[in-house]
């Protein structure tokens, strides 16, 4: 069997496990419920629009997805080691690297599913709370003239910004899951794997150098002024630059790509070389 055929078969096996188990369903319910709750709970300020509701709800959903995927990644190998299934599956005629690729692919697919679920709920919430059209400003009538409506931003442009942010968020979610996977390859026990994964993740997040356009950032995109994006990095380093910058998209993707690629490299290096005792 060729390498791709082996990986495809293992992706099928991993998919069977995910679909047969409860964890993804639980994660989906949590993400959908939290996204909806955030939208419902959001108190819209005067200058906010329906896009703000969507962005706030989405950021909450993605936060839940991020935690779920970190746990899913951190338990991908360590969980199988702890419950003893790794010693059942590994003796079959596959390379350990095949398993890493398959698990990483299925984690990425789960990230996509969770993002789409959060996005669907957030968009529905936005649509229900005033409509996701153009961002406009009413100009009062004065000096005998008529009042008018000024279009600040086109609905299409707003949707484009949201899509860009969601794309970067997806990359960040995948990178988070793969970071967990890398940690999972190092430990036999669940507790050390989970605690180390959280420690690493929170450390990188709080340093402000990881996931430049991740869920943290999304909560600020449209929070007070439409079509603006603030990154924590820019806040800290460049002071408040309150304009949407296209390079944020590239930077977010780059950061996620570095973390993701590094995580896969560590997974391959560790998992293909270590003895498995559990």
């Amino acid at each position, binding site marked *: *069997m060729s390498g791709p055929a082996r990986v495809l*078969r*293992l992706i*099928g*096996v991993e998919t*069977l*496990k995910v679909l*047969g*188990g*409860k964890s993804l369903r639980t994660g989906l319910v949590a993400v959908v419920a939290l996204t909806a709750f955030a939208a419902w709970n959001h108190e819209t300020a005067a200058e906010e629009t329906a896009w703000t509701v969507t962005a706030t709800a989405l950021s909450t959903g993605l936060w839940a997805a991020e935690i779920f995927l970190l746990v899913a990644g951190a338990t991908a190998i360590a969980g199988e080691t702890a*419950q*003893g*299934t790794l*010693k*059942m*599956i*590994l*003796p*079959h*005629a*596959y*390379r350990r690297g095949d398993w890493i690729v398959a698990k990483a692919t299925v984690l990425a697919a789960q990230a996509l599913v969770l993002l789409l679920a959060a996005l669907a709920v957030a968009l529905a919430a936005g649509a229900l709370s005033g409509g996701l059209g153009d961002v406009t400003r009413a100009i009062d009538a004065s000096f005998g003239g008529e009042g008018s409506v000024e279009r600040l931003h086109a609905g299409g442009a707003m949707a484009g910004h949201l899509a860009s942010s969601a794309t970067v968020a997806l990359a960040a979610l995948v990178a988070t899951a793969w970071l967990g996977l890398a940690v999972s390859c190092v430990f036999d026990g669940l507790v050390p794997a989970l605690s180390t994964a959280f420690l690493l993740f929170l450390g990188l997040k709080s340093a402000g150098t990881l996931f430049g356009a991740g869920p943290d950032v999304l909560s600020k995109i449209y929070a007070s002024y439409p079509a603006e994006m603030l990154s924590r990095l820019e806040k800290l380093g460049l002071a408040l630059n309150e304009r949407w910058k296209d390079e944020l998209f590239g930077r977010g993707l780059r950061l996620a790509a570095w973390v993701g690629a590094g995580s896969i490299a560590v997974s391959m290096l560790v998992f293909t070389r270590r*003895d*498995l*005792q559990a």
Partner: protein
Amino acid sequence: MSDPVLEVRGLTKRYGAVEALKGFDLTVGRGSIYGFIGPNGAGKTTTIRIVAGLVRPTSGEVRLHGVDLRRNRLAAARGLRTLVEVPAFYPGLSGRQNLTIFARLSGADDADVKRLLARVRLEHAQDRRVGGYSLGMRQRLGIAQALLGRPDLVVLDEPMNGLDPAGMHEMRELIREENRERGVTFFLSSHLLDDIQRLCDRIGILHKGRLVAEGRIDDLLSSAVTGFRLRCERPPDALAALARALPEAKARLDGDGTIHADGDTAVLPRLHHALLAAGHPVVELYPVRASLEAYFLDLTEGVMG
């Protein structure tokens, strides 16, 4: 020996300062049922983990169907199925779902899953979550996954663990049937020496990381004579003569007139001579062989029973 399925040469494994395996050779022929026994900590599970590809040897080689496991794992492990220690499954999935996962890994089809679920008598529980299975049920499911597809070599570590006497009997029958009808080679590790003696044609005894005995069970036990049963004319007189001439043989008389004497094959000429000299020629003589358990204990603890 027929075409070897598993060959181990000079296998060593070191965990820090501990030398778990000290270098041994072992060959398992195609179509055989090989018993791999040893006391706790002898290195059996380490050996099985190396064969299963879970642990790397420090030195030495393992060949499956003549292919070096380290150099070409994909080719070597094709047809290899294992059950290492306690069988483990995905607890949230049903027995059938679990077996389907292992079928995909082995390239087996759904018909094989169905056949094996019936064969290990788990049809009634196939849609229940494995988390609710008893140890015996999980053991049956473990054996079923090891037989999926077309295995050449099945490595089972304590396969009777958790099974009741009826379950053990069925499992022995299943192993014999798969061996006889599908030509599957088995490599069994067990502490149940009675099972090993009933099932296996060859055994290897591992002790402190070394293989201290290997061969056909009959051949090994034939060299392990612990005494003799013999018949003579006038047994009481013969017994008295033997007790005088060879007190270390601790001769005693059975109700049916058979004399029992302890000792190995070196004692036999002296036994004959003592009885002949006293005018009691031996009419019948049978060697008493050690049981596998006694033989095993003698090798591993130095106490022949």
